[in-house]
């Protein structure tokens, strides 16, 4: 068989990252590459909570969202609700704008002005998405730019195994070949170190020009490459997942709740609730973790708890020679910000943009790795921010998190916000400006000063404008269908 123009691509792994990569590459290469998936490793389980950016990936794949949602038991997501991180504080990190700029100055400066004048209205009341979500309602963005609903964006809650099924079907239809197999040996060229083939336990040799390691933390292909460990920066290293009955009238939110042993997630799917606890093994036993994860769940959960090990950190290089790691093999950040699927997506997009060229120079891999490192480090910084700001003192994990060193770029970002509410944005950000504002203020990091240009407006006028904004948001939200009614 002749090799197609874009060569042969072997994807090793069978989870979400393997099939997002396969479907993405099949679409982008338009049949000019021969793509093979060796399905290995544990199957995808649990639920995915995604950011709005995933919808652009679906558009690239030509996936119909309504059909996708029906096939994957999906619900809508307008953001995440954080509770328990600091006693008495809860907030939404909701998609969309916070308030509206007034006379060229960001709304959170006006909010700070009112706050300093004694007004304790939570910032959430000025986030249309948060107002809608807390009422258990939903709307997609309105295409009419004059409508307040035009500022919305949404993500999805998906059943991971069913999502893999949809992507797999799409990839197979796009010409991707798949078969189950176990990696026995990775065979390398002794001179270049490039992978020439992956030998499977059944004796087959899978040859390709490009190998993609989607085997998760096992990193069966790229495992020899050093791993930058972030366990000194982020304390969690283990999670337990428990499924529960679907709650009635679940709002379109992922719940991220801190408890003494770590943080719990609750992702509502159509037919069940995916939940669990992320904790630190040295501080909490598995038994205690299960107990903590079950607390507050309807009916103590369904089925057996499933344990997962986490390792915060990143592969120093995710692209080495003709091997690329995507997903857990490339790195991981504990997912209270639900960026795990986004990290996979950005890896696939980056691979499409920097697809290895025969005879290409090392600089393309260097750029792939530079962009990948920037991306995951910004996500890591956000995770550190949550621990840094958490006011809980009832568990040793919180002391570890609060006292962990703060990377320079994050320290600068915090200092700028604390000083005057300036939101510093770097290259390759995953989270948008409103999301950073919501996280800072939600955790009680309040600007010491507001933008002095705010004082051009009398405080009474600011108060009246803010009240009007809240009223419009509330009225707009109350007219919307419930989340359950809005589901396709």
């Amino acid at each position: 068989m002749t090799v197609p123009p874009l060569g042969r691509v072997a994807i090793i792994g069978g989870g979400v990252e393997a099939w997002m990569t396969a479907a993405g590459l099949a679409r982008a290469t338009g049949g000019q590459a021969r793509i093979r998936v060796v399905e290995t490793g544990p199957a995808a389980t649990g639920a995915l909570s995604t950011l709005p950016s995933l919808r652009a990936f679906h558009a690239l794949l030509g996936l119909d969202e309504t059909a996708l949602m029906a096939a994957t038991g999906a619900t809508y997501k307008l953001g995440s609700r954080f509770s328990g991180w600091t006693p008495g504080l809860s907030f939404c990190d909701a998609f969309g704008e916070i308030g509206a700029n007034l006379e060229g100055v960001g709304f959170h400066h006006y909010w700070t002005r009112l706050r300093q004048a004694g007004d304790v209205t939570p910032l959430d009341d000025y986030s249309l998405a948060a107002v809608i979500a807390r009422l258990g309602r939903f709307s997609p963005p309105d295409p009419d730019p004059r409508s307040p609903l035009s500022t919305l964006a949404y993500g999805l809650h998906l059943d991971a195994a069913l999502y893999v099924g949809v992507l797999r079907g799409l990839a197979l239809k796009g010409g991707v070949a798949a078969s189950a197999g176990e990696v026995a040996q990775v065979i390398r060229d002794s001179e270049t170190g490039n992978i020439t083939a992956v030998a499977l336990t059944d004796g087959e040799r899978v040859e390709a020009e490009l190998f993609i390691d989607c085997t998760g933390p096992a990193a069966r292909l790229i495992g020899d490459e050093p791993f930058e460990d972030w366990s000194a920066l982020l304390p969690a290293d283990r999670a337990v997942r428990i499924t529960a009955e679907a709650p009635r009238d679940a709002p379109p939110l992922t719940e991220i709740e801190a408890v003494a042993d770590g943080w719990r997630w609750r992702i509502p799917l159509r037919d069940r609730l995916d939940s669990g606890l992320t904790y630190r093994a040295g501080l909490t036993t598995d038994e205690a973790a299960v107990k903590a994860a079950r607390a507050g769940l309807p009916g103590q959960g369904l089925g057996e708890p499933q344990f997962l090990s986490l390792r915060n950190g990143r592969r120093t290089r995710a692209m080495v020679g003709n091997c690329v790691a995507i997903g857990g093999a490339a790195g991981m950040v504990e997912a209270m910000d639900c960026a795990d699927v986004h990290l996979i997506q950005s890896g696939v997009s980056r691979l499409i943009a920097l697809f290895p060229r025969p005879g290409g120079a090392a600089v393309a891999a260097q750029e792939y790795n530079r962009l990948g490192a920037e991306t995951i480090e910004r996500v890591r910084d956000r995770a550190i921010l949550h621990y840094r700001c958490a006011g809980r003192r009832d568990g040793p994990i919180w002391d570890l998190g609060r006292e962990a060193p703060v990377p320079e770029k994050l320290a600068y970002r915090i200092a700028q916000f604390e000083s005057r509410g300036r939101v510093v944005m770097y290259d390759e950000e995953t989270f948008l400006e409103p999301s950073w504002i919501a996280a800072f203020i939600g955790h009680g990091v309040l600007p010491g000063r507001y933008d002095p240009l705010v004082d051009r407006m009398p405080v009474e006028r600011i108060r009246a404008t803010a009240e009007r904004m809240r009223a419009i948001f509330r009225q707009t939200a109350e007219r919307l269908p419930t989340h359950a009614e809005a589901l396709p």
Partner: protein
Amino acid sequence: MDKRDLAIRRIVIVGGGTAGWMTAAGLSAVLGDSAVSIELVESAEIGTVGVGEATVPHIRNFNAKLGLDEADFMRKTQATYKLGIEFRDWGKKGESYIHPFGAFGQAIGGVAFHQHWLRARARGQADDIQAYSLPIVAARLNRFAPPSSDQRSLGSTFSYAYQFDAGLYAQYLRAYSEARGVTRTEGKIQDVALRGEDGFVEAVTLESGQRIEADLFIDCSGFRGLLIEQALKTGYEDWTQWLPCDRAAAVPCDSIEPPTPYTRATSDEAGWRWRIPLQHRVGNGYVYCSSYISDDEAARVLVSKLDGKAQADPRFLRFTTGRRKKQWNRNVVAIGLASGFLEPLESTSIHLIQVAITTLLELFPERGCAGADQDEYNRVMDLEFERIRDFLVLHYHATQRDDSPFWRDKAAAPIPDSLAYKMELFRDRGMVVKYRDGFFLEPSWLAVYLGQNILPRGYDPMADSIDPDEAARKLAELKAAVRRTAEAMPGHQAFIERFCGARGAA
């Protein structure tokens, strides 16, 4: 403490000229209704530099924020339209390319247009990439029409800037600023007083003995940096190892033909010459390196290459390329030439002034000028300067000229690592490095790389996912549509006369 006590009440801008009056206008547009008073001190005896007569499209945002009427502003500043910059003799001698204010074509199948162009070129199926850019083709035909508001149309795929008389622009903004309460004080500054406890500038004293205090000073005094350098000793980062030109001679001349809708930068034996056509004259200059050519010789070359009769004797400027180590130090913010200098090869002088004003307003301080505000301002401005610097160095580095000692030395000179990395990625696969902050987007980098014959060894392999004949057909269609659209535009001169002609109307 009472909040009111911390608010800035007085701002003094030291120096008129383009930077001073742009700052006065920008600040008064935003602060005009507040309790802040703004005073500008300038001396009619001190000339302004006014090199930046050509702009980039962002100037339109600035003017829009001020609420200027475009036709009125153009008439009063003798302005013409600008679709890009023509670079002559930068690749090889005799070659010419235009850096346009607009993209080269649209992505096909999710793959950038220029990647398809690279492949088609390798197959002998593509013309010069310049033929696929509407602003370039329109500029070559001396035509102009404003971009269409219909996002789907080819006519919406470009932007434009102006070429104007910077002195007249400063005057125009002076009237604007004074109407919004800015006071102007005539006088030369004789002394700068620093406050004992924190080294802030407390006041400036004029020759007349008048003492002027302020909470915040904006240093627009030009190269010498009266406050930022002479008083505060902030220090200067010298970039002449990368951009060695240190002088310029400037002279206006008569127009002998209708103005072109583009600026021209022609490389010369020891630097390069600019040509900026306005409605009533042409601005010209020679930016050169004094180690390779004398002032007299530079002036002689400049005058010998003019279109029409010189309107004055050449004026000389001396500068050191680089930037102030802190653009904002204590209670002094340096804007314009006082903040640093980058030669006007890509018309960025006025742009840097504009970014400085916008950033200052975003980080507008209280009277104590918090360190955090300064840090962030300086971080943003440093990025702006560095990114423009790299882009300028590219022009010098990517030249095939070897006919004079200056150019031979330039080709061998080291370049910043940040630029070397960008060039390597482009050479490998035509990829342009993107960044969030700082100027010059992908089309600009492409124009210069390709215009100066930096051709990638390969292209994005994803281009191969599209049938090559189909891509070639799309390229040919685009080229024809570009030509057709450009030919349907009015002539540049005719458009100016109809919309904003200074003659007759003024």
